[in-house]
């Protein structure tokens, strides 16, 4: 199965409906479509914004590799991954993953796999800007994210 793969790294917001349409328009073989959207939390009202730094070139390459691995592992018809960089405000979108397949299990699992590996392999870093005006800390990586990705290697 030749999956339609799209990866984009961009400053501007994305349109989930438009991305869904580009994976489904004009075709009747898609039986399942899963979307995941990651948003910026306000951390109980203390966060003013997140600043997302990335490694241009490598960010695209890594996410594309992850999407291709997902397409090799599950019978996907399509996979889209869009990640924003720059300043993102609470409530705004950060990342979008869409997986399409004839059946739901592949779409659910592939979307989760892409997110898990994107978090541990795609070169992005978040810095917090606090409401009280202080430039906060770099967000620390979580061991739980590594474990989430590693479980796919055992499965």
């Amino acid at each position, binding site marked *: 199965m030749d999956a339609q793969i799209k990866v984009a790294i961009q400053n501007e917001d994305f349109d989930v409906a438009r991305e869904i349409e580009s994976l489904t328009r004009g075709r009747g073989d898609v039986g399942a479509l899963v979307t995941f959207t990651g948003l910026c939390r306000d951390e109980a009202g203390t966060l003013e914004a997140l600043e997302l730094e990335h*490694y241009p070139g*490598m960010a695209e390459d890594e996410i594309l590799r992850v999407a291709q691995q997902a397409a090799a592992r599950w019978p996907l018809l399509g996979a889209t991954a869009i990640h924003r960089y720059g300043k993102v405000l609470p409530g705004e979108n950060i990342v979008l993953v869409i997986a399409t397949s004839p059946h739901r299990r592949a779409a659910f699992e592939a979307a989760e796999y892409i997110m898990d590996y*994107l978090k541990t392999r*795609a*070169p*992005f*870093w978040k*810095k917090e800007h606090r409401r009280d005006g202080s430039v906060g800390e770099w967000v620390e*990586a979580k061991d739980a*994210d590594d474990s989430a990705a590693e479980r796919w290697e055992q499965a």
Partner: protein
Amino acid sequence: MSALKLSYFAWVRERIGRPGETLTPPDDVKNIGELIEWLSRRGEEYAYAFENAKVIRAAIDRQHVKHDAPIAGAREIAFFPPMTGG
């Protein structure tokens, strides 16, 4: 060893005080771990950035590598903290 393009991201970049530079390490610097040791001796800003070397991630020509990866033939090497995207 020929000139290497080095890139730094997130707090590695902030601690070193620049986004990158071109340097020529001595010939006895063979792998990423040795490059980190050599950079750490260049000044306190480098020593600070690499003080906890085991958490530092590296990429050679935009591919993740471990600290024992040889740097021969590399064009661009990047150093950065564990990633926090998504």
